[in-house]
């Protein structure tokens, strides 16, 4: 017990799962980098239900190193949950996240934190010269980043880089759930964070493999749609659903008008008119449904935690005349 809770300056949070080969190197590399830097630090490793020797190894290291804290999950709960637990146990003023596979260099931690202290709430690493094979990983990643920039209003070249630094306030404020660990900067952006980036090193993965698949791409797209909605309409969902209401009621009205027009012209059969009428009613009913969804969404948002309280800072706050007499 060499340090006090509030003395920790930087918490390094790392979710791991079945990384027995990497864990000793990881600990060594981070310890080396942090000792060289000289600021009080702690390492929080979250073991996301490893089935190999990851936890016993970590436990042994933690017995020797008072800087290390290991949080062990009962089973595999996924990376978002692991990140969330790491944030909860981190005590530093600054929280730095990293992957457990040593693709990022812990020597870059001071660099990212320095950038953070220039006045940002979140700073992401940017793997400018990626060490992955070209076509298979670089191109999809560049495309994905463009899509993410467009939908989440977060101007980062490399959202996928796991080396990121956060101010403590941000970590406490963001709402991490589901599989949103991929988009923590976007979640922070929703809460009103100022986001920056800095170029960092990148090494090839030494052990193990990472994987891409179609289902994951689909999930990512769904999450992006959600984030996009939150970003624009979180405090006023009725405006979003109201637009759908207008669209569908407009289409419905047009269909019904066409039906009336055709029936006056007398050039459609009764069966054909019936189909048109049903279509019109269907569209109108749907439009009304969307309106109701919007109302429910408003209730959901209003009954939950307040969303309007975004991050801010008081820069200059002169005393006004009318408050002067009674303090």
């Amino acid at each position, binding site marked *: 017990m060499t340090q006090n809770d509030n003395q920790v300056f930087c918490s390094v949070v790392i979710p791991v799962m079945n990384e027995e080969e990497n864990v000793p190197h990881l600990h060594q590399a981070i310890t080396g980098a942090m000792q060289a830097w000289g600021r009080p630090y702690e390492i929080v490793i979250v073991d996301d*239900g490893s089935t190999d020797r990851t936890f016993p190894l970590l436990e042994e290291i933690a017995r020797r190193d008072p800087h290390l804290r290991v*949080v062990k*999950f009962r089973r595999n709960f996924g990376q978002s*949950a692991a990140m969330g637990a790491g944030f909860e146990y981190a005590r530093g003023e600054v929280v730095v996240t990293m992957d457990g596979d040593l693709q990022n260099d812990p020597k870059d931690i001071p660099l990212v934190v320095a950038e953070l202290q220039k006045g940002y709430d979140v700073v992401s690493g940017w793997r400018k010269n990626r060490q992955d094979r070209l076509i298979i990983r670089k191109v999809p990643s560049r495309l994905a980043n463009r899509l993410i920039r467009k939908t989440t209003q977060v101007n980062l070249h490399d959202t996928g880089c796991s080396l990121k630094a956060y101010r403590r306030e941000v970590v406490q404020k963001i709402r991490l759930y589901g599989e949103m660990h991929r988009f923590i900067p976007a979640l922070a952006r929703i809460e009103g964070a100022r986001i920056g980036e800095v170029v960092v090193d990148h090494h090839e993965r030494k052990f193990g493999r990472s994987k891409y698949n179609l289902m994951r791409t689909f999930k990512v797209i*769904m999450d992006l749609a*959600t984030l996009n909605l939150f970003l624009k309409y979180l405090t006023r969902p009725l405006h979003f659903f109201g637009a759908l209401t207008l669209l569908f009621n407009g289409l419905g009205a047009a269909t019904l008008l066409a039906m009336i027009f055709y029936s006056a012209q007398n050039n459609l059969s009764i069966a054909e008119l019936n189909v048109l009428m049903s279509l019109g009613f*269907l569209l109108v009913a749907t439009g009304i449904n969307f309106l109701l969804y919007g109302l429910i969404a408003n209730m959901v948002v209003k009954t*939950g935690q307040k969303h309007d309280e975004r991050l801010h800072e008081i820069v200059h706050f002169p005393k006004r005349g009318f408050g002067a007499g009674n303090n």
Partner: protein
Amino acid sequence: MLETTKISVSSVEPPARLVESDISENGRSNTLPLLSVIVPMSNHGSEAQTIYRALRQGLENYGQSFEIIFVDDASTDDTYAQVLAIATRDPRVKLIRMRAACGETSALDAGLRHAAGQRLVFASARVRANMQTLPRLLRKLDEGFDLVVGWRTPRQDAGLNRVVSRLFNWLMQKLLKLKLHDINSSIFAAPRRVLESMTVYGNLNIFIPVLAAHQGYKVTEEQIEQLPGAFRTSSHVSEYVQRLLDIITVVFLTRYSKKPLHFLGFFGIIFTAAGLVMNLYLFVYRILDFGAIAGRPLLLLGALLLVIGLQMISIGLIGEMIIYTHAREIKEYNIETVVGK
């Protein structure tokens, strides 16, 4: 909704065997019973004596200090009087009476709230288990499991109950990949910390083993004898429908509740795409002047699919909003240990 008739507060005997971890966890004094057995009763007055005697015998043989909490779910027969008579004679018996019939989940909740033990056994009077065999569950807990489900063998139930139960368990095994024979037995034992870490509502108490396994707890089963006798069969089809809906709830809760749009969005997009393709086809058909489309049923089908797809996506988005709104209150993980200070 709760009227507590506490007959005794403190247990008389010292505990025969202490489980160290269980006590030190909450720093509780060891004059409290180690075990609390919660028995919901709903018009089981005639069986009260039998249940009590079997329980006492079984638990005394097992040797840990215990208390028995009968929860009278507003019975209309003499359950209350019978249990009260037992409780006045035996200080280890507590009686809780619900003001109105609220069901077993509420009974479990009320029992939990008033239980002093660090290990809890839940055994509904309804399933007519031989209470003498309950300590088998506790021995299994001693082996290091987090929750032990009673597996009624041999089943003495009415034929219909057995068939429905078999079907239910088969479905649960398939959907949730949990290898238990009798998930819905309403008999289980677990340390307090396990039960307290789960939120159970409605009539989801029969799914407690499923939810516990989902939290990462080690769940197993142990055979329990069942007494022959008069069993009630469900009189309404609605009960089976409800059971089926409960299964859907649990599957959704354990798999998708934290990411509703991943689930609803998938079907939503398939439906929307199918509807779009149909109507695009009709649109092109009309533009190229192959004929009128107003009378084509495909037009309605396409529109319907499109509409349903969009509604699914909307509901998924609302689900995401609900979770986002409460994301800071909901913990999505269960921590086993924390090493380091």
